[in-house]
C-alpha cells in the first residue's frame, strides 16, 4: 500500500493491518509523525508532536501484538487529541497564550482508555482558544494561528476542534478526539469533510478536559469513517469515578427493521445552492433504505437565548480566574480579549431561568425526537468560511443554520453525527447531520455506515500543500 493510501486509510483498516502483521505500529507511527511534522503547521493543525511517547507506545503495541495480546480494533493505531485534554509529557495549552506553558502530570480518562485499547498518542492538536468561549469572530483565534481545511488552506477548518478536523482530513493521524459544547465537533467535521460524532452528554468522561460549560461539554471521535467513530466511541465511553456525569449505558441499535428518519422542516433554508443539492441527493440515498418523514417541525425555542444564558454563566465561572486576572488581553482574537468581560456581566437570574426553561424545552424536544432513529439536516448551510474574513462577512446573505439544530441538541445532550456528503463552492466539503435520541449513538453510526456504504465522499481526500 502506498504512503498516501496508508495515511488516508481509516483506523479500522489500519488496526486490521497491524493485527495481521502487514505493518507494524512503529512503522505507521513514524509515517504519521513525519506527516505531522511536514503538514501540521501548514494547516494550523498541531500544537505538540509527541514523538518520544508515540514511539514508546507503538513499540509496546508491537510487542503485545507479537505476543498475541491485541487490545482491540484500534490496537497500534496512532491518534491525536484536541489540546484541551491532559496528557503527561506535553503542555496542555487550551489553544490560548495564557496557558501555553500549562502542564498536567496525568492523562485524561479518554487518553487512558485509548492507551488501554492499544492506540498510540502522537500529537496534541490545535484548537480555537478556550474552545471559543469568549466569542471569536474569525479564524485567527488560537495562539497557533488559524486552522485551515486541507481541502483549501485559504479556508477555515471550523472550530473549535480545528486541529482534530484538519489532522484527520489531511491524513496526519489515524483518528482524533475532539470536544463539543455547541458545534465544536460538528462544524469542523463538515468543513474538513470527516466523520464526527458528538456523543450523548454523559457517554464519555470529561476528566482531564478543559471545562467550558459543565452542563454541555462532550468529548467525541473525529474519524475518516462512521465505522471508525463507532469503534472509537466504544473504546472511550463509560462511567468514571472522576466524572460523575459519565455513565455506563448500553448501545441500542436499530435491529433488523427499516430505520425511520425525519427531515426537519425548512432544513435547507438560507443554505447555499450546493448545500441544498447535496442534501437532496443524500435524502434520495437515505430513502433507499429508510422510512423518511418530511417536513417534521421541532418544538419552538428560544433555544439560542436559553443556551446563551446558561453558557454565559458557566463560561464566566469556568474562566473567572482568567477574566479577573486581566490576562484576556493576551488572547489572539480581538473579540476574545473582551468577550470574557461580556459573559462575566451576565445575570445569575438569567442563568437559573435558562436552566428552568431548558427543562421544559428538553421535555418537548425529546417527545418530538422519540419516534425517529434520527433527525436529518445539512450540518451547515454553507461551506467553510475564508480565512482572514470575519465570519459574519463571509457569506453575508447566509447564516449558519447548524446552530438552529445545534443548540436544541446540545441543550438536551442529544448525540449527533456529521458525515461528508459532497462538495460545494471552491470544492469545499459539505456535511450531512444525523441527530438521535439520548444514548442512540449506535443508531446514528449504523445509519451513517449504511449511507457511506452507498456513497464515496468519505473516501475522497485532499491533495495537500506543503
Amino acid at each position, binding site marked *: 500500500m502506498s504512503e498516501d493510501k496508508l495515511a488516508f486509510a481509516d483506523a479500522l483498516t489500519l488496526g486490521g493491518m497491524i493485527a495481521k502483521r502487514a505493518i507494524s505500529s512503529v512503522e505507521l507511527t513514524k509515517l504519521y509523525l513525519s506527516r505531522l511534522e511536514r503538514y501540521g503547521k501548514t494547516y494550523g493543525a498541531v500544537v505538540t508532536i509527541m514523538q518520544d511517547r508515540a514511539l514508546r507506545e507503538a513499540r509496546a503495541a508491537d510487542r503485545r501484538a507479537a505476543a498475541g495480546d491485541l487490545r482491540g480494533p484500534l490496537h497500534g493505531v496512532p491518534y491525536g487529541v484536541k489540546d484541551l485534554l491532559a496528557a503527561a509529557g506535553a503542555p496542555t495549552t487550551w489553544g490560548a497564550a495564557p496557558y501555553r506553558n500549562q502542564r498536567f502530570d496525568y492523562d485524561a480518562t479518554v487518553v487512558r482508555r485509548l492507551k488501554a485499547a492499544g492506540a498510540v498518542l502522537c500529537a496534541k492538536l490545535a484548537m480555537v482558544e478556550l474552545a471559543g468561549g469568549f466569542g471569536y469572530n474569525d479564524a485567527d483565534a488560537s495562539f497557533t494561528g488559524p486552522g485551515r481545511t486541507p481541502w483549501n488552506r485559504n479556508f477555515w477548518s471550523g472550530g473549535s476542534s480545528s486541529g482534530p478536523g484538519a489532522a484527520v482530513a489531511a491524513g496526519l493521524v489515524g483518528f482524533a478526539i475532539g470536544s463539543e459544547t455547541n458545534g465544536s465537533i460538528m462544524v469542523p467535521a463538515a468543513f474538513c469533510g470527516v466523520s464526527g460524532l458528538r456523543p450523548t452528554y454523559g457517554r464519555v468522561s470529561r476528566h482531564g478536559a478543559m471545562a467550558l460549560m459543565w452542563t454541555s461539554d462532550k468529548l467525541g471521535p473525529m474519524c475518516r469513517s462512521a465505522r471508525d467513530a463507532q469503534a472509537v466511541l466504544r473504546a472511550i465511553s463509560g462511567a468514571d469515578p472522576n466524572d460523575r456525569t459519565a455513565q455506563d449505558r448500553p448501545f441500542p441499535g436499530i435491529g433488523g427493521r427499516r430505520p425511520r428518519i425525519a427531515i426537519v422542516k425548512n432544513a435547507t433554508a438560507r443554505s447555499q445552492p450546493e448545500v441544498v443539492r447535496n442534501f437532496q441527493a443524500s435524502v434520495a440515498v437515505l430513502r433507499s433504505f429508510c422510512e423518511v418523514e418530511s417536513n417534521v417541525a421541532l418544538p419552538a425555542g428560544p433555544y439560542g437565548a436559553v443556551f446563551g444564558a446558561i453558557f454565559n454563566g458557566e463560561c464566566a465561572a469556568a474562566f473567572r480566574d482568567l477574566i479577573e486576572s486581566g490576562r484576556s488581553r493576551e488572547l489572539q482574537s480581538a473579540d476574545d480579549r473582551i468577550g470574557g468581560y461580556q459573559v462575566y456581566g451576565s445575570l445569575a*437570574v438569567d442563568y437559573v431561568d435558562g436552566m428552568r426553561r431548558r427543562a421544559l424545552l428538553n421535555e418537548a424536544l425529546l417527545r418530538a425526537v422519540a419516534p425517529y432513529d434520527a433527525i436529518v439536516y445539512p450540518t451547515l448551510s454553507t461551506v467553510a468560511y475564508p480565512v482572514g474574513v470575519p465570519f459574519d462577512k463571509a457569506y453575508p446573505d447566509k447564516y449558519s443554520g447548524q446552530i438552529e439544530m445545534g443548540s436544541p441538541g446540545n441543550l438536551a445532550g442529544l448525540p449527533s453525527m456529521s458525515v461528508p456528503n459532497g462538495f460545494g463552492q471552491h470544492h469545499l466539503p459539505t456535511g450531512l447531520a444525523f441527530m438521535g435520541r439520548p444514548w442512540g449513538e449506535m443508531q446514528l453510526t449504523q445509519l451513517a455506515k449504511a449511507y457511506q456504504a452507498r456513497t464515496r465522499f468519505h473516501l475522497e481526500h485532499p491533495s495537500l500543500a506543503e
Partner: protein
Amino acid sequence: MPTRKFFIAAAAGVPLLAASPAPTPGKTSAPRTPAPKSKSSALAREFAARMRRFDPALSDKQLDTIAAGIDENLKAGSRINPEGRVLKNWDEPATTFEVRE
C-alpha cells in the same frame, strides 16, 4: 464551539452581528469590533466600566463594546421567560440539587 455571536443571532432570529467592520491592519492590541452605533444602557456601561479593575488598559472603545455585549445578553435573557408567561414558580432547573452518600 462556534461564537457566542451565533447564539445572539439565533436568539434574535437575525443574521450574525449586523455591523462588524473590517479588521484594522497593524493594530494588534486594538479591538477589531468598533463601538456599536446605538448607545448602551447605563447599567451595562456602569458594569463595563468596572472591568477596568481587571485590566486598566481597556480602551473606551473596548468598554463600549463590552457594554453592548452585556446589553445583548440582557436582551437575550429577557426572551427566556417573556413577560413571565412561560416559567411558573414551581418550574425547576434542568439540574437540581441532590443528596449524595
